[in-house]
């Protein structure tokens, strides 16, 4: 299933074009393209250039710190790491079942963060590409341009995100890096005043969620063939699903389907993930390449995230999202939808689901309960898995008899999509860049393909589209023959 653009023969004879840093994605990465004298692309790679070391430096720390400490991996969806670590520590403290209040408060927190993360990604980072076109003038192709040209859409994006952040604040204590989830449960429930505050705006959020889905459908269907084909790759898909096959991003079993939608494995207990998932390494990337073990590294790579989740689940438990899922699946004509840009469509269906799920939970008396924590006997191994906004997230810890972490393994969502993102940029390289003199709008297509996955390349503070960018063109002698520089003002200059 892998394309042939991973490694070129005789790379020293090819011109190297670098897109660094990638913009409007979370964290830092770069893309390198090798082009021959006839302008054919011979190699395309997405490189992750940061090293974090969390798995190492949490060794030696007490296990009860994990949910708060490890969430510092990310500034965009730290709740994912907070909750995955909390689930792992639930297992460590022998909490086989959370109290209804604890589980529902955690779900509320998770839906709030998925809502805010999806809103941020679509409206702030990607809507400029989709509303204005990939080749729109670069100084206009950003969230400021959206505010100027589509103020109502921009406002909805900002306020949807704000609402999600408020849900997080009230369940976790603060909007970023809270402390709500603790081993065996949570440290607070919601009082009447807090529930009233959230209920006040929830109907508006559900409506805007529906509007967002209608917006992406309108954009998608305006150029259906193009959007279905752009960066599209056939792949396996993996996600968490509920006990009845329903969409569930907090807890459930693992399901993997192949490119035709046939089941590879289903309802797998995630604590046994090592029997199903392996991680490969390549000498040109700091990020690992996970694959489904039974299919091997060549054919076993897969996609995670909204596209995989909506394709994989049997149904949504909320009516509006379920209605949209059915329409989405029709686009696949009996197969899973493989278009990479359909990630946006699936993501906004999930956003709608989150608004509905929050609405339901706000009516549930359990979220005001007082039974917050369950604990049993201490265990040596804890594994927590959930669906982060960007895909399946694995936290695995082992502790000694004193409760000190001595082993940790994290497979973060974006890592699962590593091979897929590389395949997508190779598809774009082959279909849209090959044989052409490279320009900024053409190179932006590479970034558009990567952005569709909403990668969190460092799980750190996020970068906006005004980041400086330098594109240097080297000849086969590694001599600089051209250089374009994008300043923080958005101005582009040829600096050679």
């Amino acid at each position: 299933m892998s394309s042939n653009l991973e490694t070129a023969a005789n790379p020293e004879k090819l011109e190297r074009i670098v897109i660094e840093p990638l913009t409007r994605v979370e964290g830092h990465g770069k893309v390198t393209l090798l082009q021959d004298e006839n302008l054919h692309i011979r190699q395309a790679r997405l490189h992750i250039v940061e090293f974090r070391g969390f798995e190492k430096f949490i060794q030696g720390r007490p296990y009860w710190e994990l949910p708060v400490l490890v969430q510092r991996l990310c500034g965009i969806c730290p709740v994912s790491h907070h909750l995955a670590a909390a689930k792992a520590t639930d297992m460590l403290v022998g909490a086989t079942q959370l109290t209804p209040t604890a589980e529902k408060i955690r779900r509320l927190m998770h839906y709030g963060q998925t809502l805010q993360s999806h809103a941020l990604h679509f409206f702030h980072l990607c809507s400029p590409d989709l509303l204005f076109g990939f080749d729109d003038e670069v100084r206009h192709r950003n969230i400021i341009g959206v505010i100027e040209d589509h103020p109502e859409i921009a406002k909805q994006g900002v306020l949807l995100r704000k609402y999600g952040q408020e849900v997080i604040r009230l369940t976790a204590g603060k909007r970023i890096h809270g402390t709500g989830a603790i081993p065996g449960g949570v440290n607070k429930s919601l009082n009447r005043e807090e529930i009233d505050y959230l209920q006040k705006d929830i109907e508006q959020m559900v409506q805007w969620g529906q509007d967002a889905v209608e917006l992406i459908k309108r954009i998608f269907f305006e150029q259906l063939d193009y959007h279905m084909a752009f960066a599209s790759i056939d792949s396996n898909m993996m996600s968490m699903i509920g006990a009845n096959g329903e969409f569930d991003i907090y807890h459930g079993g693992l399901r993997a389907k192949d490119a035709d939608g046939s089941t590879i494995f289903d309802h797998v207990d995630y604590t046994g993930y090592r029997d199903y998932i392996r991680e490969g390494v390549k000498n040109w990337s700091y990020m690992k390449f996970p694959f489904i073990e039974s299919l091997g590294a060549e054919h076993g790579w897969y996609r995670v995230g909204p596209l995989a989740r909506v394709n994989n689940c049997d149904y949504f438990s909320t009516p509006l999202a379920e209605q949209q899922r059915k329409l989405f699946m029709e686009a696949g004509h009996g197969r899973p939808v493989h278009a990479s840009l359909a990630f946006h469509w699936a993501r906004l269906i999930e956003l709608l689901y989150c608004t509905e799920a929050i609405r339901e939970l706000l009516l549930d008396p359990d979220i005001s309960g007082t039974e917050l924590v369950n604990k049993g006997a201490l265990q040596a191994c804890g594994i927590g898995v959930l669906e982060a906004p960007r895909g399946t997230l694995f936290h695995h810890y082992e502790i000694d008899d004193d409760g000190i972490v001595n082993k940790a393994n994290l497979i973060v969502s974006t890592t699962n999509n590593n091979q897929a993102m590389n395949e997508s940029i190779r598809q774009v390289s082959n279909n849209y860049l090959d044989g052409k003199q490279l320009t900024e709008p053409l190179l932006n297509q590479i970034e558009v393909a990567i952005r569709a996955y909403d990668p969190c390349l460092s799980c750190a503070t996020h970068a906006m589209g005004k980041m400086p960018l330098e594109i240097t063109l080297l000849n086969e002698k590694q001599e600089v023959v051209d250089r374009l520089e994008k300043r923080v003002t958005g101005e582009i200059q040829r600096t050679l």
Partner: protein
Amino acid sequence: MNEVKTFRLDGVDIEFSEGDTIMDAALRAGAYIPHLCHNPEFTPHGSCRVCIVEVNGGQVSACTQPAAAGLEVDNASDAIVEERRNLLQMLFVEGNHMCPGCEKSGACQLQAVAYYTGMLSPHYTHFFPQRSVDASHPDTAIDFNRCILCELCVRASRDVDHKNVFSLRGRGIDTQLTINSPSGKLGDSTFAATDKAAHVCPVGAILPKHRGYEQPIGNRLYDRQPISVVGDVAAYEPGNKGDGHD
């Protein structure tokens, strides 16, 4: 009738009794002088120097300086506050005080005093010393990364628990807290979670195991009011005046 004796603290008359230090009298009068190694239950130590005040043109530690009639004590001059801030910044960089992940955050005296003195950053280069966590005891863990060598646990174990579980060893920058047990581990010592020494640490160095972050953000000791109003961490330990705060 005994004559009421007073000294002036930042221009305010403070009454004192025979044998009082400046700190004793100030605390009784509700006037806050920042401090870390001082706890009214123990003999003053004067080692952290955070309580330095200016008295008649010289600098002294308020916790050890006897009060005397007519003293002019300056607790809030720019120079004193700046010096305190420097001391706190040095404390932060010589240990590993990672507030964002620390379970004591929001209820830590070091953090609260740093906030009170307006410390915005550590300023100095971090030492990042290699220190460990001793979790060998079934109920209590010691994170040496966070120890500020205030010796409150040393004093409590020696003077109240009569166990001498803790002491300091080494000199100067190499000084560190050590455990009096055959292996040097807390689990091999006579320490018990009910000891006074388990309840006097002003930072997150000595903590109960298997717990943490149980107080939601907003309900922690210093979330609502500054330390000058709330008082010391140790005062809220079980059995003390503030036991049971929410």
